[in-house]
């Protein structure tokens, strides 16, 4: 892990109470999880006990302590999506990728997470894949989307090895 990137994030921070949260949010954004060394560095520079940094990392859903996969699939399980069949979507993704909620596939390709609402309830059920919103989702559409991502990935992999 590149600690210089953490140092860059920490630069000039520490005067405001919320800074520690912002630093962790930036680290999460940069590395897509909170590496242990980065948390240690944060605790040291901001002079916050490491246990506090760890507590924050554990408490807030925005942070993950394990590396995430290359693709992030977020299934909304909010009330509006729930009554419109979000459970089926969860079954579809988890069954197809053979993971549990919050887990990453063995090959590191997909992480599946749930969210309590993304504020697009009128379009329920909603799934977000790599930041893109998909409305009125069905298990069938979802299965095809996942297969397509797999295919594109495989093609890119092939061109990489050929080159």
């Amino acid at each position, binding site marked *: 892990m590149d600690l210089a990137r953490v140092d860059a994030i920490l630069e000039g921070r520490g005067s405001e109470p919320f800074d520690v949260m912002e630093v962790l949010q930036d680290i999460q954004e940069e590395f897509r999880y909170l590496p242990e060394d980065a948390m240690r560095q944060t605790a040291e520079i901001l002079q916050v006990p490491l246990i506090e940094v760890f507590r924050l990392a554990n408490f*807030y859903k*925005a942070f993950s302590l394990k590396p995430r996969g290359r693709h992030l699939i977020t299934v909304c399980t909010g*009330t*509006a999506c*729930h009554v419109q069949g979000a459970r089926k979507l969860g079954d579809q993704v988890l069954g197809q990728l053979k993971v549990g909620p919050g887990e990453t596939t063995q090959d590191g390709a997909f992480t599946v997470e749930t969210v309590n*609402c993304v504020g697009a309830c009128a379009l*329920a059920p909603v799934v977000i894949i790599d930041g893109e919103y998909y409305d009125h989702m069905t298990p*069938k559409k979802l*299965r095809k989307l996942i297969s397509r991502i797999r295919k594109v990935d495989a093609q890119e992999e092939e061109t990489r090895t050929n080159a």
Partner: protein
Amino acid sequence: MPRLGNLDDLAALCDALGSKREQSTRTVTMCAGTACRACGCLPVAEAVEAEIEKQGLCGEVLFRTTGCHGFCEQGPLAIIEPGNIFYAKLKVDDVEELVSQTLKENQVVERLLYTDPVSGEKVRTEDAIPFYASQTRVLLGDNTKLSPENIDEYLSLGGYTALAKTLTSTSPGDVVSTVQASGLRGRGGGGYSTGRKWEQCRQAPGEEHYVICNADEGDPGAYMDRCLLEGNPHAVIEGMAIGAYAIGARQGFVYVRKEYPLAVRHVEGAIEQAHEYGLLGDNILGTDFSFDVKVVHGGGAFVCGESTALMASLEGKVGEPRAKDVHTVEHGYLNQPTCLNNVETWANVPKIITNGAEWFAQKGTQNSKGTKIFALTGQVKNTGLVEVEMGASLREVIFDIGGGPQNGRAIKAVQTGGPSGGCLPESEFDLAVDFDELYEAGSMMGSGGMVVMDDSACMVDVAKYFLTFLQDESCGKCLTCRIGISRMLDIVTDVCEGCGTPEQLDLLEDLAWTVSVGSLCALGKTAANPVLSTLKYFREEYEAHIEQESCPAGVCPALIHYTIDEDTCNNCGLCAQNCPYEAISGDKESGYRINGEICTRCGICVESCNKKAIVKS
């Protein structure tokens, strides 16, 4: 942008922008809120802009993209003035015709008009659409008139005039009196009098005072705060500035959910533009009043919407609530007097200052004034954001505006108030929706979520859903909430699995009482509402699960199973292909069978079968 040195500068700028606005004879307004973006409005918007240029209408036609209009389901949508013509579900391919016919020739393109699902007829103008016609869109109406990314559009509608009026001719005490006289109550759930909160905060001694806008909006199924911040961020900022002046604050915070990236971007952009005009920062409009706003991204914890937890989070700590006997208006953020209000509460403030307390108090019921935005979702024909006067009946909202049930089913219940609220049956739909009536009926206004459920929903499953949510989101600080909710969930799970007993229902009611009186914050205090309200109105469903071990709606996985009817099945194998868990095996010769051990009862196979050969029992 020039810094506005005084009230006259602002008035002159607003006038100039206002008359420019009136001069533009023809406008196309497209919604570009989060939901419409999900429906693909951006490529359509780009195409419209390009087509306007291509057909040489650049100087004549004003094109703007706005925040959410509320009718998300019909996106991408466009409104064309003059004529108030409303086009729904636009595609890039429709754009050429829209520009050449409607903008050039003043011809309405029939096929692009909205079809009312109730009457089946085409509707020509936005005003005539039943979904909009019965609403009173005091706040949401502005969303359709301005681009949230350009402060000039807000100013052209007289934006920041309320702040200017306040700073130059009203004392802080009078501002508080006006808000108090209006009868405004907090839109974040509790319904506390905003004027009273401001007065308490103003009177509290402290080195610094703070104002906070609560945009954490954790209630699943509610998204009015997102739409206001995203679509009209300056109204919220102006409201906060007026509040800050009234209570004596110089610093404000907007605490936004991380799931709302567009809202974050728009409010941050708005703050920057307000700074450039000198409407935020030091000596606003040449007065002694200085005020700044910082946007803070939440960490994704439902409990952080609670006022004391939010302030702890803002201090860089874990978002755990504390006992409320020490009031945040006296000891809030950094132990200083802090006034925290919801997004919609803040957005109402400039309207009250501009139009007067009486104007606001005329709307609504005896003790709930003004309008309220609801997120109408679930199993109704028209879903979206609905703004009505307090006191409108549930029936008006669900049937007149929402258009009633989908697919010819029957509406069974509406869930209001999110995880703190309850489920009300159809027989209660004549209830006037305000803070007190909903509370009396065993539910809550909450932040304004209204999830409609038809007869395909199992109410025990709904109770289980909310308990699961609350168990996950309980911060774990107090015992009754931490243990009580999970024990309630155990019992409801037993019921859902057909192994509940009648005695357990009594225990459930006891537990509900304990959790509601023993918990520290409103998360626990109201956690029993989904259970108690379903027990009150839908007890027979609990009893069916217990006595007959059956789920009348056919939802609870443990009480249903799927089989393939061999006579109807044509051995196509689609079900086996579609089952995500590979629970269906067989081949084209010998037919297919479902392995009940692996099957999770998700029902995906039922949808995949063209022959309807998979039966649920």
